[in-house]
C-alpha cells in the first residue's frame, strides 16, 4: 500500500473481526536507531499455534468469502523489503500482538502517511454491536502523542464520537498531536 497508515487500518480491522473490545496501536520512530515499528495489540479471540504459523500465508484466512487473506502478508512483505520483518504473537482466547519493524531510512519504506484519517476511520465508524476502544501512542525520539478513546468517551458522557462537533474536535486534536511529535526541538510551543 502507498502509506503505512493504510496497512495499519487494515491490521486494526483484523482486531475488530477477532472480537476485540480493546486495541492498542503504538508507532515508534527511533531516528538514531534508524528503526520504525508498528505494534497492534488486541484482546480478541486470538489464534492457536497452527493459525499463527499460517497468519502471513496469503492463502490462509478465517474469512468465508474468499480463500485469500492479504492484510498480514502484504505488511510482512513491506517490512521485509525494508530491512525489517513482521511477527505475530497470539494466545487463543486472549488476544494477538502484531509487530512490524522497518529500517526507518530505507529508501523503500513507505511514508507513514495520513495516520489521522486512519485513526478517524477506525474510531468514527459506528460499532454499537462491536465496540472497540483504541489506545494510541506515537513516539518520535523523545516526543510522544497519545490518547485513548475510553477517556474521550468518558468526557462525552454518552454523546457519540460521530457527533459533528466531536468529529471536528477529534480531527484537529489528532492533527495537532501528530504535528507536535514531528516538530524539531526549537519550534515546540510552550505551555499546555
Amino acid at each position, binding site marked *: *500500500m502507498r502509506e503505512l497508515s*493504510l496497512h495499519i*487500518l*487494515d491490521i486494526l*480491522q483484523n482486531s475488530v*473481526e477477532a472480537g476485540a473490545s480493546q486495541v492498542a496501536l503504538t508507532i515508534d520512530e527511533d531516528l538514531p536507531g534508524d528503526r520504525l515499528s508498528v505494534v497492534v495489540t488486541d484482546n480478541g479471540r486470538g489464534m492457536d499455534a497452527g493459525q499463527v504459523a499460517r497468519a502471513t500465508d496469503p492463502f490462509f484466512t478465517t*474469512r468465508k*468469502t*474468499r480463500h485469500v*487473506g*492479504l*492484510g498480514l502478508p*502484504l505488511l510482512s512483505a513491506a517490512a521485509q523489503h525494508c530491512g525489517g520483518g513482521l511477527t505475530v504473537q497470539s494466545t487463543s482466547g486472549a488476544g494477538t500482538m502484531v509487530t512490524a519493524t522497518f529500517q526507518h531510512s530505507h529508501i523503500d519504506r513507505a511514508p507513514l502517511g495520513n495516520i489521522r*484519517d*486512519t485513526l*478517524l*476511520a477506525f474510531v*468514527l*465508524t*459506528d*460499532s454499537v454491536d462491536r465496540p472497540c476502544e483504541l489506545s494510541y501512542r506515537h513516539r518520535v525520539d523523545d516526543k510522544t502523542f497519545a490518547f485513548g478513546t475510553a*477517556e*474521550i468517551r468518558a*468526557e*462525552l*458522557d454518552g*454523546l457519540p464520537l*460521530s*457527533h*459533528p*462537533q*466531536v*468529529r471536528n*474536535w477529534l480531527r*484537529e*486534536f489528532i492533527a*495537532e*498531536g501528530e*504535528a507536535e511529535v514531528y516538530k524539531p526541538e526549537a519550534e515546540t*510551543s510552550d*505551555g*499546555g
Partner: protein
Amino acid sequence: MAKIKSLEDLKKIREDAQKDIKVRKDTGTRIIVGMGTCGIAAGARETMHAIMEELAKREIEANVTTVGCVGTCVKEPLVDIEQAGKPRITYGNVHPDMVSKIIEEHLINGKVVNEWVVGRLDASGI
C-alpha cells in the same frame, strides 16, 4: 499560535450538544463501507471520509459502519445503503467524487443512482 486541543474542550461540546434541540434529518439509513484489505487498497478510507463529510454538510443522520471483504474485490470501494423496507443497494467503485451525488440522489431524493449499482438485495432478505 496553534490552538491547543485538549479533553477540556469536550466538556463544552457536551454541554452545547445537550442544549442543542435542532433535530437533524434522520433518514433511518445504514451506510456500510467495505474496509477489507481490498477496500483499503482501492481507497475506501477516503471514500468513507467523503461520506462523513457529506452527511455532516447536509446535516443528515445516518449510521456509517464498515465491513470486511465480501469477495468482489475488483469493485471496491463498495458502499452499501440500507434503508428499512427498501432493497439494500450496493454501489461499486465508489470514489470520493461520486459520494455527493449518491447522498443527494439516494438519501435525499430517494432515487437510486442506477449507473453505479453493482448489487441489489430485496428488502425481504437474501
